[in-house]
């Protein structure tokens, strides 16, 4: 038993820190103000990352690193999932908004990585893929989507409206969830890779948001949008036994990654707060928490909560790397990291007072960015529901 990162990840963390300090933080405020402007500086970052991903396997920061790689070696591994968590944490210590709009590293890429067949994987390689699930009337209850896909010869015809599509106006491909037959329930939900420029698919709006402004969030409408059947990801049959599993399996891999984002943002706020407060606090990790100043106690508590969130995230990634089912642990990590990141970033603003609240520092930005991390990829409440059902061994019909 040992819970430290292996030495081989040091290159990765150093790289992420340098990237954050030299390339991300300097443009953080710029794109927080210039919402909807594409951060062109990211093209360079993305090609750097592409280069690294092509080299030594598993050293990336992107979501597409998340798929379970075949285990070649026996024994315990610290593999691609953990590397992705470490990389993402480091990147988000720089800026989470910029990560979310990093070309070719979208959640759609993760979906393609998880379920694409060989031909699709080859065809979509090097493309930037966004993910379109949420609809105006359907949020956490994603099995309830009403965007339809009707078979018409070799094509599927898509109709419906998608919202909250991260990088929807920037990506090359939109991975869309649509139902083949709403009456057949979750088993009929399939995902389709729709290439930009496909007639019938149109970006209708870009959201104005509380945070992660660097990351564009699009509303996309589909009206008689014809998608070739070779773009359906996964099994085209309506298999009621397998049900929702196919599409939901993506989430088991991506929840720890979003948890890692939260861990990174929280660390940014905590580090900066400790830096700003170093004149008035001294944390020696020795005096009992009951006896230190209130501000020091807050820092200790935040640090403990942060470490807990981080370890839960690494646990979920470690389990994935070692072929252990981690659905519950992934949700635990996401729940803990999401709420911890939000409370830490907000507490840091409070502790730093006007420095925290003003735009001279990035603390206020991080406290706005953090809110989404407790919402997307499954809200706090959805994660608790997943954990509770697992622990109590209850179905979704019993524990609604």
């Amino acid at each position, binding site marked *: 038993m040992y*819970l430290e990162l292996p030495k081989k990840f040091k290159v990765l963390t150093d790289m992420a820190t340098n990237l954050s300090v030299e390339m991300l933080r300097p443009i953080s405020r710029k794109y927080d103000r210039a919402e909807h402007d594409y951060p062109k500086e990211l093209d360079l970052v993305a090609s750097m990352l592409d280069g690294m991903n092509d080299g030594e396997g598993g050293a990336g920061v992107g979501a597409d690193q998340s798929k379970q790689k075949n285990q070649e070696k026996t024994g315990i591994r610290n593999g691609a999932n953990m590397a992705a968590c470490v990389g993402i944490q480091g990147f988000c210590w720089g800026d989470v908004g910029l990560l979310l709009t990093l070309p070719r590293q979208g959640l759609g890429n993760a979906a393609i990585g998880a379920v694409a067949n060989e031909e699709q994987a080859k065809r979509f390689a090097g493309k930037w893929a966004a993910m379109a699930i949420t609809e105006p009337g359907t949020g956490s209850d994603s099995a309830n989507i009403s965007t339809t896909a009707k078979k018409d010869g070799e094509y599927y015809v898509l109709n419906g409206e998608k919202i909250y599509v991260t990088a929807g106006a920037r990506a090359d491909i939109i991975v869309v969830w649509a139902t083949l037959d709403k009456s057949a329930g979750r088993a009929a939900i399939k995902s389709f890779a729709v290439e930009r420029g496909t007639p019938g698919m149109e970006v209708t709006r870009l959201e104005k948001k509380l945070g992660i402004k660097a990351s564009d969030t699009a509303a996309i409408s589909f009206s008689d949008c014809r998608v070739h059947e070779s773009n359906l990801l996964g099994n085209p049959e309506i298999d009621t036994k397998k049900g929702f599993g196919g599409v939901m399996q993506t989430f088991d891999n991506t929840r720890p990654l979003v948890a890692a984002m939260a861990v990174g943002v929280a660390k940014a706020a905590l580090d900066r707060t400790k830096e700003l407060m170093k004149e008035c606090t001294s944390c020696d990790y020795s005096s009992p928490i009951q006896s230190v100043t209130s501000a020091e106690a807050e820092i200790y508590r935040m640090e403990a909560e942060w470490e807990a*969130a981080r370890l839960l995230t690494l646990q979920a990634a470690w389990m994935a790397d070692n072929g252990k089912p981690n659905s519950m642990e992934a949700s635990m990590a996401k*729940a803990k990291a999401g709420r911890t990141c939000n409370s830490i970033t907000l507490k840091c603003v409070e502790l730093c007072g006007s420095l925290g609240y003003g735009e001279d520092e990035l603390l206020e930005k991080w406290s706005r960015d953090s809110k989404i991390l407790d919402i997307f990829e499954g809200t706090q409440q959805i994660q608790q529901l997943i954990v*509770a059902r697992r622990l*109590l061994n209850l179905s979704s019909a019993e*524990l609604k």
Partner: protein
Amino acid sequence: MSRDPLGLAMATMSRLASSAWVEKMGLRPTIEKLTYQGTKTGFQAMGAASRQFKSVSQLLRPERLEAPAQPKLQFDLSITEEQQMMRDSVRGFATEVLRPAAGANDEACEMDPELLKQANELGLTYFAVPENLGGAATERSPVTSMLIAEDLAYGDMGLAVAILSTIGVANALTHWGTAAQQSKYLPAFLDENTLQAAIAVNEQRPLFNADQLSTTAQETADGYVLNGTKTLVPLIDKAELFLVAASLDGKPRVFIVESGSEGLTIASKPNMGIRAAAMGDLDLAEVKVSKEALLGDDTFDYQAFINFARLGWCALAVGTAQAVLDYVIPYCNERVAFGEPISHRQAVAFMIANIGIELNAMRLMTQRAVALAEQGKPFAREAYLARVLCAEKAMEIGTNGVQLLGGHGFTKEHPVELWYRDLRAIAIMDGGLQL
């Protein structure tokens, strides 16, 4: 507190009423026992008569055990096969023997000697004493100690402390003791006539800080003179050997004190929880000890000593919190209100989810600090943060455990009220254990 006339009258009436009630209920023996255990008797009781500690063979150098070999230092949550076997037997003992006995031993404020005998048959002490001194320990694994603590506490925390107190002293002697100290004391832990021992760190005052001790050690020509009072000392009336934290020249150190020492008195003092561990106060009035009584040499690390205790309590918290979780799950699945099991309500289910999440977090934080310690790496920060997290979440889990059972949880029909009382200790204890 000064009393006005009305207050005095009320005090008298209440005394009369309670004594009449005592007679009527025939509860005299219980009350007398409580009086003996209470502070009113002061430090009249002598400690347990201590045996003669004699070195059978004299070590030239202290035995220092190495950490078990780790094939490759990387993130790894798995445990070894030996650890798994150990866990299985300890967990079995905790579930089948300790848990059913928890209530009675809690009420008796001590561990049934028969039960202790059974616990000793697990042979845990042998793994704390190096092979060269007659034990079975070839390596020193705080991780294994942590797993054992967790599993024992899954049965009952009070009984776990009663069992681990003695082992903790052996662990400390193995880890820090000089050759002379190890030769003199460690073999006694394997005596047929079981030795009991305890670590005394806490002192009775608000905002106690283990770095700033009131108990003092004054150096003399032939040793040290100890003065002060320790509290929350397990096995208070049975322990023959104490490790006492005291301030020497303004710096905290630890002294080996035999229970028969002149000037040493004890008082049993039950607390709200951990009652089966028979905790009490240890008073040292001009207690003279030899030069050899100072634990370890200049390399002694008091901070690490305290952290090995705190992490022990974190491990206990994990075990008890797991017991809470495993108890409330079937309860809430079976308990019906408004026509369906209460677990079908999110208000209940989410509370259980959060117990699961925070328990997992407590375990990982504890494991991380202990694994670092096992590798001989700095672990003060990780231990501190583990304590901060466990102290808070353990109590949260304890109180929610009772809450989930409602009124039933408040009664002794269910163990959750015991766990509630036990879990309050995690934020307080600085001694008593040593991983």
